[in-house]
């Protein structure tokens, strides 16, 4: 638990240091990243339906973003 947290802090630090340097692209190099299927939440409807199924059938849910409400359990 604590170790995971430290990992997160370390990651945030790394991102701060590396910021402009090696990571990332120039603004005009986003052709591939701009594709719909490269969006992190691409296929949002599928993700929502999956979340609902797994929320009802498993003990853990969420993590990706805020889930909608409701039980629809069993």
């Amino acid at each position, binding site marked *: 638990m*604590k170790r995971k*947290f*430290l990992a*997160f*802090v370390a990651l*945030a*630090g790394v*991102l*701060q240091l590396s*910021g402009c340097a090696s990571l990332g692209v*120039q*603004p*005009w*190099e*986003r*052709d591939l990243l*701009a*594709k719909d299927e490269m969006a992190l939440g691409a296929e949002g409807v599928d993700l929502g339906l999956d979340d609902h199924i797994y929320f009802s059938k498993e003990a853990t849910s969420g993590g990706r973003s805020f889930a909608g409400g409701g039980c629809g359990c069993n």
Partner: protein
Amino acid sequence: MSRIRALAGVISLSAGLLFSTANLAYAAQPAPELVLNLTNQQVKLSDYRGQVVYLDFWASWCKPCQRSFPWMNDMQAKYGEQGFTVIAVNLDSERKLADEFLSKLPAHFPVAFDPEGNSAQTYQLKGMPTSYLIDKTGQLRIAHQGFHVEKQASYEQEIQGLLAE
């Protein structure tokens, strides 16, 4: 307790990031020279000296760029005869994608193709689209990052201002 301290660490790290935006301040300077590969000829940016130039950098995948095209056509139609031109530099790495875009949103102004992005490098673009207004003497006068529909009127006033000089 240590968790809370760790969280505080994250927040202070993040705060450092949040308020360190690099914004480009703009002083008039000569527009860097560009070689423009138009559909069927090669020209230089300096060939347009004497005209007010709206130099626009765009790509097919850029959403605000789509909104800028009807407006740029409009400006070209309105001020083209008064010594104004739009020049749109396409930065798609694949020409096919640019052509598809142009078949849907035809441009009534010169479009140059720069798949290598050399011109973008020269102009050190900070976002897409970026546009520059160049006065009749070839000086860079105004830069816009992004294209905001609600600012169209002020963009147009800037063109009128430079044409009146």
